[in-house]
C-alpha cells in the first residue's frame, strides 16, 4: 500500500498558486543561489524569503510540526556543533577574535576541557543556520504542497523523458511508503529483542547485525515491485509515447517566477564570482572582542 505525502489543496497558498514546474525551477535556483553566499547580509533575504513562503504556504503547524522540528533541530544542532568545534569555518577565516574562554576547573588525565567563544565562530554558526535553514524550509514544504498526481508530468515538463520522469515520480511516491516499512521493520525486530542502539560484539558483528533491518525492507520492496511492474506492463508502459491525464498550463505569473529564479541564480553566481558574499564579520561583533 502506498503511503502518500501529506499533500492537500490549500486555500490561498502562495506555493500552490504556481505551476509545479515553475516552482521546482525556482526552488532549484533558490538552493544554488543560497549556496553561493556565506555573508549574513546576503543570506538574510534568502532566509526571509523562505519564511515568507512558509507562512504563506497554507501548511498548518500540526501537519508540519514533527518534520519541521526534526529538520530545524538538525540544522540548529549542526550550527551549534560548528560553533563548539570551530570546524568548517577554517576554510573562511584564519584569525579568531576571542571573546571569552570557558575552562573547566578539573582535568581528565591532564587534559583541561575548554571552550573558546570567538567572534568568528558565532558569526559562522549564524551564517550556517541562515544558509542551511533557508534551504531546509524550502525543501520541507515541497511534499506538503506538490500534488503527487502531478509529479510525473512535472518532471516530464522539466525536460526528462517519459521513463525517467516516471521513475522520479515513483521515487517520490515510494519514500514515505518505505519510511513506514522501515519503521515497522525496526519496531517488529525490537519486539523480538533486537536492540538497534546497543550494538555489541566486534566490528564485523556490529555491521552484520544491521542485516535484520536491511534485508526485510529491501526484499519486501522488491517483491512488492512485481505488482507495480505488472500493472504498468498491462497498461503498455513504455511501448509508445506516453500521454498524461493531467495537463499543466504555464501562466504569466509562472513565467515571471521562472525568470525571477533564473535572474536570482545568475546574479548570485555573478556576485560570487566577483568576490562578493564571502564570509563577513560585522564590525560591532569585533568590538565585543575588543577590536
Amino acid at each position, binding site marked *: 500500500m502506498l503511503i502518500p505525502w501529506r499533500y492537500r489543496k490549500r486555500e490561498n497558498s502562495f506555493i500552490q498558486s504556481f505551476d509545479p514546474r515553475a516552482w521546482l525551477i525556482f526552488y532549484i535556483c533558490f*538552493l544554488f543561489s543560497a549556496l553561493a553566499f556565506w555573508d549574513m547580509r546576503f543570506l538574510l533575504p534568502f532566509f526571509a524569503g523562505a519564511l515568507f513562503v512558509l507562512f504563506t504556504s497554507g501548511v498548518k503547524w500540526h501537519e508540519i510540526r514533527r518534520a519541521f522540528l526534526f*529538520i530545524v533541530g538538525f540544522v540548529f544542532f549542526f550550527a551549534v556543533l560548528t560553533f563548539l568545534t570551530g570546524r568548517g569555518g577554517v576554510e573562511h577565516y584564519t584569525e579568531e577574535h576571542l571573546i571569552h574562554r570557558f575552562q573547566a576547573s578539573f582535568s581528565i588525565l591532564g587534559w583541561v576541557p575548554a571552550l573558546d567563544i570567538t567572534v568568528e565562530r558565532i558569526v559562522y554558526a549564524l551564517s550556517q543556520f541562515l544558509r542551511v535553514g533557508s534551504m531546509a524550509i524550502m525543501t520541507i514544504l515541497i511534499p506538503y504542497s506538490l500534488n503527487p498526481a502531478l509529479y510525473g508530468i512535472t518532471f516530464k515538463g522539466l525536460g526528462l523523458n517519459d*521513463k525517467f520522469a516516471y521513475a*522520479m515520480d515513483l521515487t517520490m511516491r515510494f519514500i514515505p511508503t518505505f519510511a513506514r516499512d522501515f519503521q515497522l521493520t525496526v519496531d517488529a525486530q525490537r519486539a523480538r529483542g533486537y536492540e538497534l542502539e546497543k550494538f555489541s560484539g566486534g566490528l*564485523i558483528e556490529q555491521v552484520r547485525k544491521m542485516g535484520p533491518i*536491511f534485508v526485510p525492507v*529491501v526484499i519486501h520492496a522488491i517483491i512488492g515491485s512485481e505488482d507495480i511492474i505488472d500493472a504498468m506492463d498491462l497498461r503498455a508502459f513504455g511501448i509508445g509515447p506516453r500521454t498524461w491525464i493531467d495537463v499543466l498550463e504555464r501562466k504569466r505569473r509562472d513565467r515571471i517566477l521562472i525568470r525571477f529564479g533564473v535572474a536570482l541564480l545568475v546574479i548570485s553566481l555573478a556576485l560570487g*564570482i566577483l568576490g562578493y558574499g564571502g564570509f563577513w564579520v560585522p564590525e560591532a561583533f569585533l568590538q565585543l572582542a575588543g577590536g
Partner: protein
Amino acid sequence: MDKNLRSVLYSLVGILALMLFLILFLGNVLGISRFQTDQATLGLRLGFMFVGLLAVYAVYSFTKDSPAWEVGTRQVVWMAIGAALYAVFSWFFNATVFVVPSLSQVALRPAIAIPMFFGYAFGPVVGFFTGIVGNTFGDAISGFGLYPQWSVGNGLIGFIAGIPALFADRKRSLDTVLWVGGALTVLATVVYFLNRDQTNLMFFDPANNVFGDQPIALTAGISVLIGFVLVLIVRFAFGKNVDIAAAVTWGMLGNLIGIGYAAISDIWINGYSFAAAVVGEFLPAAGPNLIFAAILVPLLVVAYSAVQRQSGR
C-alpha cells in the same frame, strides 16, 4: 554515431571545456581569484558533476549496444525503489549517526549497500539512478543541502557495481578488478601513514569529546585496508557463488572510485590538500563503506537469489 548521441556528447564536452577554460585560463593564467582552484566552489561543484556524468556517458557510448542499457518497465520501477530506499536509509542513518556507535571516529553509512546491490542486481542504469537520485533526496530530506559532486560520486558507486551486466560472463575481469582495488587501497593506506596527523573532516561525536579537528584513529586510517581484506575473504570464500563474489568485488571498486572522485574533487572545491582529501575525507567514508559492502551486499544478494528462485523471475 546517431544524432542524439552526438549532440549530447558535444554538449557535455562543451560544458567541460567551458569549465576548464574558466578554471585554468581565468583562474590560473589571468589570476582572477574566484576562478582559482582554492577559491571557487559552486561552479566547480557543477563542473565536477559534469565530469562524472561525462565518464558515465563515455562508458555508455562505447558499449551502447549492450542490453544492459535497456530501460524498460522493470528498470523504471527498480530505479525508483532503489533511489527511495537509499534516501530512506540515508535519512535514518544520517539522523542517528550520533547515537550509533561508530568504528572509530567514522560516520557509519550502511545505506551505501543499496546502490551497490541495485547496481549489481539490476544493471548500471538502475545503479547510477539509485546512487545519484537517492543520495540527492537523502541529503535533501536530512536537511544537508545539495552537493552535486557527492551525489554523482554515489551514482558512480551504483554504476560501477552494475558494470558486470555488460559482460556475458560475470566472473570475467574479477581478478583485474581486485588488483585495481588493491592498488588503490595500498595507495590510500600509504598516504594515511605518511600523514597520520591529518584531521578527520567528516566525523563529530561531542558525547565522547571527539571532534573533526582530531587526527583519525589507526582503525579509521586502515579501515579501507580492513574493508579490502574482507572483500578478498568474501571473494575467495564464496568463489563458487559468482553473484556474491562479483557483487562485492565490483561494489568495492565502485566505492573506491566513486568516493575517491568526490573526495578528490574537494581539493579544488574546498581547497583541501591531497592528504586532507584522502585521509580526512576518503578514508573515513570509503573504509566503512567497504566493510558494509563485504557484509551487507552478500546478505542482500543471497536473499534476492532466494526470491528469484521462488518467483521464477
